[in-house]
């Protein structure tokens, strides 16, 4: 059986094994490897070098029939479905990590640095606490000071 969607193609090799081909323009190698890691409890997973430009994942289910401990083992179709869903999540996680890594490093460096070494000056001017000189400051002066109020 072959099924597919954009950037994704899966083929059941047998009742208990399948091959997934993924488009590296959509799914990163890192997200694929992290997804594979989380599925190693239920399947043997192999990520071989691929002759074409696809990223290939071979899957073999560990449990091939019902046992007392697990009377309803997962089928290869269910497994591939779950694998692809979690792949989407890991791709999103990778995007967050890639975008935020420098900020995260800066925050950690600030958190564990000696007091004051990596601190920014507070915004604004000490002599102008309500930022009268800043038109986008918290408050604005809309007329002359009212002596009576």
């Amino acid at each position: 059986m072959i099924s597919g969607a954009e950037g994704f193609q899966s083929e059941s090799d047998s009742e208990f094994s399948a091959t997934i081909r993924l488009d590296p323009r959509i799914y990163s190698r890192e997200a694929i490897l992290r997804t594979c890691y989380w599925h190693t409890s239920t399947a043997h997973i192999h990520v071989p070098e691929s002759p074409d430009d696809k990223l290939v994942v071979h899957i073999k289910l560990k449990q091939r029939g019902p046992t007392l401990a697990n009377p309803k083992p997962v089928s290869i179709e269910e497994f591939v479905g779950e694998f692809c869903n979690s792949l989407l999540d890991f791709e999103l996680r990778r995007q967050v990590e890639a975008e935020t890594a420098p900020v995260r490093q800066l925050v950690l460096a600030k958190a564990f640095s000696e007091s004051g070494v990596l601190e920014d000056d507070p915004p604004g001017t000490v002599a102008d606490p309500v930022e009268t000189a800043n038109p986008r400051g918290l408050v604005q002066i809309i007329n002359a000071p009212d002596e009576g109020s």
Partner: protein
Amino acid sequence: MRTFHPVESYSSSQAGYRLLPFRFLRLDDGAEVFVNEVGEFVLAPKGTARTLIQKQLPRSSDLYATFKAKQFIADDSSSPLLDLLATKYRTKYSFMEGSTKLHIFVVTLRCDHSCHYCQVSRQTADKISYDMSLETAAQSVELMMKSPARHLTLEFQGGESLLAFDVIRYIVPLAKKKAEALHKELEIVVCTNLSNITDDILLYLRDENIMVSTSLDGPAFLHNANRPRPGNNSYELTIKNIDRARKTLGVGRVAALMTTTQLSLQHPKEIIDEYVRQGFHSIFLRPISPYGFAVKSKEKTGYQFDAFLDFYRTGLAHIIEINRKGYDLSEAYSKILLTKILTPYGTGHVNLQSPDGAGLSVLVYNFDGDVYATDESRMLAEMGDHTFRLGNVRTHTHRDIFTGEPFLNLLSSACNQSLAGCSDCAFQTYCGSDSVFNHTTQGDLYGHRPTSDFCRRNMEIIKHLFTLISARDPEIMRIFLAWIQNSGLREISKRAPS
């Protein structure tokens, strides 16, 4: 006259937004939970992660404002508040300050009980072989005082620690004198089954301001089945002596811990009701440890993992009901997690922190002078596995212990921030790393998260707490608040009426 700008001037422009570091996870009902670097969370409907990360979250939405306020995203009108994030981070990890705070002294292995889950105790009158010598005791105190922590806890354990009362009486004044000279605060706890307690011992504990921590596994049928001793009267002795101890030391100076066995798993409500009947206001629904005799007697203590989760969930629901009816009772494991989830603070619970508390938060001084990274480590040693023996008080200095190979090996897997499976987990800030557990159950310090009971247990428990939080039941939230503030539900309700 000064006035505020109109509200529009504070709204974001149409320019895009930037992501700040966070992680996310799906709950079982499809809802998504987002947690940032400092443990603040947002619960949001299914599909939010994709919308948020692909920068399609509408600026006018409440979620946008929430994510921005909690520093998950920043836009052109965000102040440069990275210092604030850094301060929050430091606060979350402030439990690391000062390093090792808990120092466990195993003053004897002798015990009058023969609990099948106990890893270490010996029924013997042989004081020489199994009691800590005074020389070892003095060297242990010396090593303990080398810890940089300003606040130290000295905990006496066994065996049955009070069978070596003479050793305790030797250590207490010595430790107090040294702590005072070094300007350290010292709290002392004695873990005892209370079966050998006398009025003289109680008066001594009172005069020395020593707390008592005892074992109560549940009602008589359960406690006596779990904790056999000659006469099969452990429960009766414990209850009678808890009462005596409270009368002498004060109610708040006597705490109780339960150990979960296969038999316990069938009786969560009965165990909890027993704690209420005995006037305790805290209970710790502990999973059984995979160490020592507990592993050897798997027939008796081995149980399915799911059974523990059922036990925990049923127990927690029962505890919440008891609070609703007006009796203040907290569950210790949930309290640790809720403190991390709902407050800016972390907690240094040895088995649920990152960096791992083994050695960094606790040291165990065995009766023979061997120093172990955790209580579980010395139990492993009793099974012949000395991986976590960090040194010996006679031959190793504080520096030797913390620069030695066993401790450095432990450190290599101490931070869940850098463990596969944990590094991108939404619950990383709430959870921990337990290398001793990994080593015992999976054969290496690093562990394999997809098959780890530690991971699965904490994942399920934290998810369960988020399910309760997301139900937005004001009374449950007040109960949780009372737990993390060590306060009564009535006081919390007075402060925040619904």
